[in-house]
């Protein structure tokens, strides 16, 4: 039985680099949750990629005890939230598990789009938001301006926001006291039927799926029979407990207000969907907690092993990744050009990049990724409606009555000096301007409606490069809109390479085709025979480049009977060829497939 009065459940909202992880580390340290010598920098982000990129990919939680100035010990549950637009839904579920949120804002950078979006989300969930001004030790820090901005933009009082430096530890105690005084203790009665919100899960090879929950009401303990209200799956609880900083600590049970974990010999992570409600089989809750929805992938691409023999390894890698990441989908597909591979679905471009990187790094498989695609909605001339996420399956244009593409509402925060550049970029990407709002004299919020298909290529990269890294972006799925779409095919030596085909808006087809042909020309090495590169729409050639035949590839001197050099050279060249894909008679290096993904560099 817990004493709810002394529980505080909260999360930290911050933009990338604004110091969320550092603050979390300091809090862990100050509450003696981890001894200093055990501290590894940024403890909560425990995947390599997360640490390198400075972002949180998966939510995580930790329980800590704070001895407050009022003489009482408080139990803090800090729930970490992913910091990227691709994981919006996960963020919302993490927020729903809390009563309060720390809003960390960099004193020299001010509020960013992602912070804003997540803060609004927190306010929607009735969370008590405590602004915290970080990095006040920097010479460029302007805490007063930042406080003003928080009050103006978000409309919450910020005058007594703790001014801190998470890096040096300055002001952290203030933050901890604020958590005690400002964030409400959890409500909900232990006697009510069980409602526990799943906000994260991962797979452990011994325990099976570990489900991270916030108990909203009721109790749960080992031996209980539980039911997932959305999926209907039932299990018997093996273990409950809470999250220590470095390991899971078992407990006798969890009560209303608690944040903890549950294991129940669950084999399939798909049974434990984030946002679902756990209840007891006997005396179940009548209603699940609000807010659950099925998360669907929005971006699709083909993933193929460079070495066809590693198809089985790739499948295993994807299966293992899926154990911890229910939002990743994949199914086998075959490409004439690339052989056997998988069509994979991702929440967004970052999610896609992370999965690719993990396959290459953690599973050591060289892969080729085809151009990402969104899901297009096509109404055929016979009235049927199909959803297409793979250019290969795109029907002939004369069979299509109406084609629609997904549209997002995008919010871009930027210093005023870059407004022109951003408008230009959004226009190039077929954006429709909706609104511009001054946040303060030097910063504006731009609202655009943009086709998702236009931002999954290299929108982020270009946005960053055209605004010296200052602009930030957030977006939200809006729906579908009619668009003039065509399928663009790329031909090498006269043969269509299916893996290079993609769907594009008719107005952009020519320039995209020309750019791709030029990129391929730069990335396909000269070979024995000339390689014509053509871009075509429905058989009509719209761009052409040629990789001329190589003219020199010989060891001219076979001196003194030393033929070993020649043999070595040939072997090296043979090895080099293994890194290439043979498409018909053309050898295409892995980089060529990558290069067409980054056209505006």
């Amino acid at each position, binding site marked *: 039985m817990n004493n709810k009065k002394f529980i505080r459940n909260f999360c930290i909202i911050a933009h990338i680099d604004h110091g969320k992880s550092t603050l979390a580390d300091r809090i862990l340290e100050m509450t003696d949750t981890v001894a200093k010598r055990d501290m590894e920098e940024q403890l909560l982000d425990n995947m390599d990629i997360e640490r390198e990129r400075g972002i949180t990919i998966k939510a995580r939680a930790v329980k800590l005890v704070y001895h407050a100035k009022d003489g009482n010990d408080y139990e803090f549950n800090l729930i970490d939230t992913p910091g990227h637009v691709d994981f919006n839904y996960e963020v919302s579920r993490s927020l729903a598990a809390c009563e309060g949120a720390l809003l960390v804002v960099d004193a020299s950078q001010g509020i960013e789009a992602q912070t804003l979006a997540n803060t609004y989300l927190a306010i929607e969930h009735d969370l008590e938001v405590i602004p915290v001004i970080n990095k006040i030790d920097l010479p460029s820090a302007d805490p007063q301006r930042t406080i003003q901005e928080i009050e103006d933009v978000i409309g919450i009082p910020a005058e007594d926001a703790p001014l801190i430096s998470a890096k040096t530890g300055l002001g952290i105690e203030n933050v901890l006291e604020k958590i005690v005084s400002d964030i409400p203790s959890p409500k909900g009665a232990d006697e009510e039927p069980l409602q526990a919100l799943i906000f994260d899960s991962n797979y452990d090879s011994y325990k099976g799926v570990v489900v991270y929950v916030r108990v909203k009401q009721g109790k749960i303990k080992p031996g209980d029979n539980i039911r997932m209200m959305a999926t209907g799956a039932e299990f018997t609880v093996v273990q409950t407990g809470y999250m220590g900083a470095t390991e899971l600590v078992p407990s006798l049970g969890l009560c209303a207000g608690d944040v903890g974990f549950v294991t129940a010999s669950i084999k399939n992570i798909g049974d434990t969907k984030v946002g679902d409600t756990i209840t007891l089989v006997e005396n179940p809750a009548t209603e699940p907690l609000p807010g659950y929805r099925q998360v669907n992938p929005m971006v699709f691409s083909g993933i193929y092993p460079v070495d066809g023999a590693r198809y089985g390894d790739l499948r295993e890698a994807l299966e293992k990744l899926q154990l911890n990441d229910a939002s990743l989908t994949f199914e086998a597909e075959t490409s004439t050009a690339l052989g056997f591979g998988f069509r994979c679905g991702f929440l967004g471009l970052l999610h896609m990049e992370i999965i690719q990187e993990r396959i290459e790094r953690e599973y050591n498989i060289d892969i080729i990724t085809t151009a990402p695609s969104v899901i297009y909605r096509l109404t055929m001339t016979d009235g049927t409606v199909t959803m297409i996420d793979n250019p290969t399956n795109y029907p002939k244009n004369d069979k299509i009555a109406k084609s629609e593409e997904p549209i997002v509402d995008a919010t871009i925060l930027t210093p005023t000096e870059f407004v022109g550049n951003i408008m230009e970029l959004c226009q190039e990407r077929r954006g429709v301007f909706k609104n511009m709002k001054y946040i303060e004299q030097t910063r504006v919020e731009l609202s655009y409606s943009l086709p998702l298909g236009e931002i999954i290529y290299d929108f982020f990269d270009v946005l960053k490069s055209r605004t010296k890294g200052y602009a930030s972006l957030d977006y939200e799925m809006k729906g579908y809109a009619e668009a003039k779409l065509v399928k663009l095919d790329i031909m090498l030596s006269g043969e269509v390479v299916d893996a290079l085909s993609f769907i594009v808006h008719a107005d952009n087809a020519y320039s995209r085709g020309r750019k791709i042909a030029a990129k391929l020309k730069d990335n396909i090495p000269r070979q024995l025979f000339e390689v014509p590169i053509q871009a075509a729409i429905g058989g009509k050639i719209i761009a052409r480049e040629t990789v001329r035949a190589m003219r*020199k590839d*010989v060891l001219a001197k076979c001196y003194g009977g030393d033929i070993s050099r020649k043999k070595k050279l040939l072997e090296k060249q043979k090895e080099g060829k293994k890194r290439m894909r043979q498409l018909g008679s053309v050898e295409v290096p892995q980089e060529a497939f990558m290069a067409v993904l980054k056209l505006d560099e």
Partner: protein
Amino acid sequence: MIGLYVHIPFCDGKCPYCDFYSINAKTDKKEEYVRAVLNEMNMRKSYGLADTLYFGGGTPTLLKPSQIEKIIKYAVENYGLSYKNEITVESNPNTLTDKKLFELKKIGVNRLSVGVQSGREAELQALGRNHSLDQVMKVIERAKYEGFDNISVDIIIGAPGQTSKNIYDTLAFVESLNVQHCSFYQLKIEPKTAFGLNPPKNIAGEDEIADIYLTVVRQLKKIGFLQYEISNFAKKSKECVHNLKYWNRDEYIGFGPSAHSFVDGVRYFHDRNINEYIDDVMKVKQEKVLDADFEWIMLRLRLVDGVSIADLKKRGFWNDDFKLKVKRLQYAKYVEWKDDRIFLTPTGMMVQNAILLSLFK
């Protein structure tokens, strides 16, 4: 019959492009070294009879003629070499004094290979050569006077500053020398050379090199030099008998550090270390022998004769897939197919590696 190769690893200086094994001639080990070579020749005399002898380097003409003479004599007495057989010495023009030419001829050298490298002074300088064109002309004149009627000159394709236009100057120079044989080697920049560390900027690119090469092949033909290998050209019946052994997969023994041998189906070589060699002349490393058939085609396709269909059949290469590939190469003018022979065109020779890889994937 076996070919004998003797590596003479001494040079006055290191040319910036050269990757062959040599040490500075000032560290005087020549006498000791010649004894070691004779020692190795003694140990291997059971390998068989020889019909060519080739002194390569380094700069073999830095040896005293009397030292070279000992080796020639030893080969004659122990390997059945005849003075009528081809006995070649490589040389650097500025080592060929009148006296030395006289003596070389006297001791039985009958083929002289001269490192001319270019017919343009600017290229000679860029290549770090210590001789002038004028010197070359005089040396060749004198060699002929001494009775050398089988002289070869080495030229570099792709020397700094060389273009498909000014290669005509070098070709004219070669013509004026009126020799029997010439080799045009493409410069390959090796990592551990002065050029490798600090590559010259004015070296022709892939297309220009190919143009130079094709010009060389075409122009040499006009002045009576027939191509018989990728880099080698000779007047009628003046092909280098010794070098042909390499490409025909005949046997040869290489004496001295860095020298390679192919005897009884085994390939072995000495390390690039003269001291180790002197310590133990029999210490060699064995080389992995590739598939003999592949080696054969790889080497034979260097020759303008190419391969015969009968041989291809005998070695199991000839099938429909191979035939199709050959037809494709023929269509692209890399390969010619005349009667029962298949051989590379000059354009094909420039991409011989790629052709081999395309045939055997």
